[in-house]
């Protein structure tokens, strides 16, 4: 019998949730130094689920910034989700109702987006619900514990868990690259330029979010120009 999309979503959401948990603990530590309570930080995580965005916002809140600055920071740090949602709009069946779009849109993150993209064919909304249902609590709970427990968690455990998300990303992008030289080349080029931009002092002014957006737009446009995708399986 074929596994239901919802259960598949739950299963694929487990590594996301675990990885989130580890990252969120360190986010919670940042929230605590910004003066937020464990409940407030968990609420922020439940409503945002954005690592860089929340981290940047917490830092500003701690520094006494105003609401507008926090809004602007959130916009800039999360701008890549705008791109991801555009890509995701092509992954949804055109008949997907508005309400389901509003729910799916609530939780588009790097990791969840990765899981969606790895799905063959159109994204089934129930698969998305399964992923979100298991991943989001991991994020909020991790943030809560980060505030409540501070750095009491064993460092080795946090260290090991923090690569879970990257492992997941690789599980998403590597298998298709094995079948396509263009994708393989694009991935290697992306990593090389990303390393260059993050290590070269001349580019130190670029934040992580800005680097991701800049390279995504430039390299995706380059690939689309040089290697347009014509077959049906694109997106």
């Amino acid at each position, binding site marked *: 019998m074929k596994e239901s999309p919802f259960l598949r979503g739950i299963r694929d959401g*487990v590594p*996301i949730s675990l990885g989130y948990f580890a990252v969120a603990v360190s986010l919670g530590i940042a929230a605590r130094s*910004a003066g*937020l309570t464990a409940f*407030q930080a968990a609420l922020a995580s439940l409503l*945002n*689920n954005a690592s860089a*965005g*929340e981290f940047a*916002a917490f830092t500003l809140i701690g520094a006494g910034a105003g*609401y507008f600055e*926090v809004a602007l920071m*959130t916009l800039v740090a999360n701008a890549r989700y*705008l*791109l991801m*949602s555009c*890509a*995701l*709009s092509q992954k*949804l069946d*055109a008949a997907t109702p*508005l309400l389901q*779009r*509003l729910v799916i*849109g*609530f939780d*588009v993150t790097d990791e969840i987006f*990765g899981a969606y993209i*790895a799905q063959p064919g159109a994204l089934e909304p129930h698969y998305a619900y399964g992923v979100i249902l298991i991943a989001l609590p991991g994020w909020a709970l991790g943030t809560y514990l980060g505030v409540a427990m501070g750095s009491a968690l064993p460092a*080795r*455990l946090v*260290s*090991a*868990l*923090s*690569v*879970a998300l*990257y*492992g*997941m990303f*690789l*599980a998403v*992008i*590597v*298998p298709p690259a*094995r079948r396509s030289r263009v994708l393989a080349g*694009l991935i290697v080029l*992306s990593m090389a*330029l*990303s390393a260059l931009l993050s*290590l070269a002092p001349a580019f130190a002014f670029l934040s*992580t979010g800005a*680097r991701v957006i800049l*390279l995504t737009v430039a*390299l*995706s446009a380059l690939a*689309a120009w040089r290697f*347009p*995708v014509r077959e049906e399986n694109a*997106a």
Partner: protein
Amino acid sequence: MSGNPYVYILVMAAVSYLIRTLPLTLIRRRIENVFLRSFLYYVPYVTLAVMTFPAILTATGSVWSAWLGFAAALVCAWRGLGLLPVACAACAAVFLSELALL
């Protein structure tokens, strides 16, 4: 902190939600333009690659354990294992190598 924490949280949540939902609700149809379709097809690969590397190298307690975790994930992903096994392999490689190294 100079404002109400709940207003801060609401502002963050509203901005994040709009960013994520507007494209999903406004782009209701299949984009026919080949360049745009190709662009959106390549976006996830570039984004995920850029976010993984070199950030993974500084995610753990030591750059060596990170390299080993990276290598373990690459090998397992290349062999076509799923999201959970690859993630676990990376974690295990980091954990075991840090036991040995640190």
